[in-house]
């Protein structure tokens, strides 16, 4: 693999490239990190979608889509996510490398130009985003929020997160609320765009079969024309665990229940970072692999859940156990999950289980380097880490974790919130 190149283009604008011709494609992602605040979340969330639909040069959705199609189905897409207590607004361009085109087109050069145009030179009318573009993205964002209701697994996870982290930045939805999106105006969103360019922490990633230097140059020039007022983002704060478990439930016409247990670990990139590898391994032993305790015992042996797994988020130090459970089994399943947590805390797992979790984790880190999207995600989630590791370096860290360190990491894990999605029948009883 080629070397990772990292540098700072300007204050708060970081550029990272991992160029490798083993890929047939390339990706350029521009990620704007903004503080996650209730009053700005909705306007920010609309932005990447507004910016990726057209630009001064390709002034409507069809003109932009035709340009993308002529570049071999290249993509200009948008996303909104959360990392720690920040909202991440992403505009992403990707396509096949020039060497694989049918007529030798310069796909990378063209896409860089289109991407810069989209971010810095959108279609404005009297200084505001155009009404029809704004209405279109507002409608689609509302539909996106509504669609999350249909995915019960995701719905339950989100409800657990917002219940558990109410009052914390992480508890704010990446799209803001439905009402907030509904109440947006062109003025607010246009202002959010200006604020984003001037104040956000920007992480630009260039990956795959592409020469990164011209891309860096293009962004250096584009950001050079912006007056920046960058202030570094505050690190996430970690709330202590609740003394009494918080319980919440919703009732819908569903055939199978969902239960999500929200846990606080006290270990995150900003808090005891040296313990993060041990915590990752703890999560794998507990419920991250098919040889984990949640899979082998709660699902396979006890047949309590159709799925049951744990996922640890190192940027905020939270762990969520997600499960699909029959309504009648929810209490039993909760007790069984907690019993397995206790087992890990007491070191009650075999050396074999421990080695298997380690091997699975190390193996999965090595495969990150074979996927552009995985690589991008890998570096993005380390934006606030005190030290940035390559997947290979991280695999070595995991390899060095001892059993005792896993037990020590587990000791700090405590149950904070239990969320259940139940059926309508259950409500009547």
């Amino acid at each position: 693999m080629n070397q990772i190149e990292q540098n700072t283009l300007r204050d708060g604008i970081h550029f990272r490239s991992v160029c490798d011709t083993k890929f047939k494609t390339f990706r350029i992602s521009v990620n704007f990190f903004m503080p996650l605040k209730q009053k700005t979340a909705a306007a920010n969330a609309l932005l990447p979608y507004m910016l990726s639909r057209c630009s001064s040069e390709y002034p409507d959705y069809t003109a932009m889509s035709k340009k993308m199609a002529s570049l071999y189905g290249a993509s200009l897409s948008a996303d909104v996510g959360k990392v720690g207590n920040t909202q991440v607004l992403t505009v992403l361009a990707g396509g096949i490398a020039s060497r694989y085109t049918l007529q030798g087109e310069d796909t990378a050069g063209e896409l860089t130009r289109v991407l810069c145009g989209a971010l810095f030179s959108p279609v404005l009318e009297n200084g505001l985003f155009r009404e029809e573009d704004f209405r279109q993205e507002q409608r689609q964002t509302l539909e996106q929020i509504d669609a999350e209701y249909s995915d019960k697994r995701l719905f339950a996870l989100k409800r657990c997160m917002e219940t558990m982290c109410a009052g914390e930045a992480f508890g704010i939805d990446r799209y803001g609320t439905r009402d907030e999106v509904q109440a947006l105006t062109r003025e607010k969103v246009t202002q959010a765009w200006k604020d984003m360019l001037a104040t956000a922490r920007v992480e630009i990633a260039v990956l795959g079969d592409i020469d990164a230097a011209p891309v860096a140059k293009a962004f250096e020039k584009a950001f050079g024309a912006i007056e920046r007022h960058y202030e570094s983002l505050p690190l996430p704060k970690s709330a202590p665990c609740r003394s009494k478990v918080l319980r919440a439930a919703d009732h819908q016409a569903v055939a199978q229940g969902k239960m999500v247990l929200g846990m606080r670990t006290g270990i995150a990139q900003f808090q005891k970072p040296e313990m993060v590898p041990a915590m990752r391994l703890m999560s794998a032993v507990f419920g991250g692999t098919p040889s984990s305790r949640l899979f082998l015992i709660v699902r396979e042996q006890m047949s309590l859940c159709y799925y049951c797994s744990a996922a640890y988020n190192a940027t905020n130090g939270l762990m969520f156990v997600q499960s699909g459970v029959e309504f009648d089994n929810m209490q039993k399943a909760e007790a069984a999950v907690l019993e397995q947590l206790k087992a890990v805390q007491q070191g009650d797992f075999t050396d074999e289980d421990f080695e298997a979790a380690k091997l699975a984790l190390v193996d999965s880190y090595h495969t990150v380097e074979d996927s552009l999207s995985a690589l991008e995600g890998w570096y993005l989630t380390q934006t606030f880490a005190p030290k940035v590791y390559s997947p290979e370096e991280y695999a070595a860290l995991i390899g060095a974790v001892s059993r005792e360190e896993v037990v020590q990491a587990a000791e700090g894990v405590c149950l904070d919130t239990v969320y259940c999605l139940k059926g309508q029948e259950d409500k009547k009883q």
Partner: protein
Amino acid sequence: MSSLQERKIDRVGESYFETRHSSGLKIFIYPKPQSHSAYAVFGTNYGSIDNAFRRADEQEVTRVPNGIAHFLEHKMFENEDGVDTFARYAKTGANANAYTTFDKTCYLFSCSGHVYDSLQILLDFVQKPYFTKQTVQKEQGIIGQEIRMYDDDPSWQVLFNMLGGMYHTHPVKLDIAGSTDSIAKITPELLYECHHTFYNLNNMALCVVGNVEPDKVLAVCDKMLRPCEKVQVQRYFDPEPQSIVKPRVCAKGSVATPVFYYGFKEDAAVRATTREAAQTEILLQAISGDASALFRRLLDAGLINESSFDSEYFEGPGYANVLFSGESKDADAVAAEIQKEIASVRKNGLSSEQFENAKKSVYGRTVSGFNSVENLANGIIGAYFAGRSLAEDVEAIASVTEAEAEQRLQKQMLPQNAVLSIVEP
């Protein structure tokens, strides 16, 4: 040792090898020395639609409960010595899984190290069935839960409702996992019978992609593949009329916005060739892709959104159809617009810009697919069972002409074969 034939894909500078092993197994090996990972898939040409079949050595058609292929997939992970297959993989660090589709069942793993040890495990457990009454009973409970989970998935419901509106007899309309009632009829004896019939190596294929050496893969195959009786089996389907069952199916579900599938049934006596499949992909891109006039009209009218509107060519043994899907407050209006657009293209043809851009898009998507070992392995196996070839795919797309695509449209997406399925709040 079997002799390897190289399949070159010059346009993308790639190649892979294929051979038929003396045991009867078709083997594909695709070395990618720069890759950190490897991905192997061992599959059988046997899926949920195979609930009736005729073996060459038997007169009668055998009928088995719906959902048995998927049930068998679950049960294959248990072994006679009591050591679960996942526990065996745990020693190599591989990430293992399996899936059952309408027409195939595949077992797979991905890993970055210990690839030959993991391959040994894969070849071993898939060839060794072990079922007892007790383990079958337990699985009936677990799969019952899986079926209920899909009951809550509106995108699953809306697809099967559409297939039900389309097919009179073909089992593609049945849920891959079967129903709680049908899986209750599954016994260890039936599972052994299906394994013996469909998991014979002549009916299977193996594909390994990634940082592997062909000689070493073949050495593991020589060691692990067990000669087996060549069972010839024919898929059996009751006669399926050309007509649809009903043009519109509407159901209630737990959704916030209505979801829809709009499909066009096709004559599926013969499967599409690599070239025909490429023509259809390009047609769909031209008619309904992001750059199309149809997409723009639907978007401007607030009838679809970018994140869910999609189209695909969905075909297999005895079934073929073009599908449009998405979310919409008025799916009937979307269907009417789609009909209008197809009629117009059928009458007036595509513009050169429309065709060339669609072709480039499909070509670009296919080239991108070569990044992923997983995509390649599943693609090679899928193409092989369908009688097609991944090696020919890139060239087919690059050489499709506008006239060919337009000609293909004369036989596809006919208005009398359309079915609209909606799940609304």
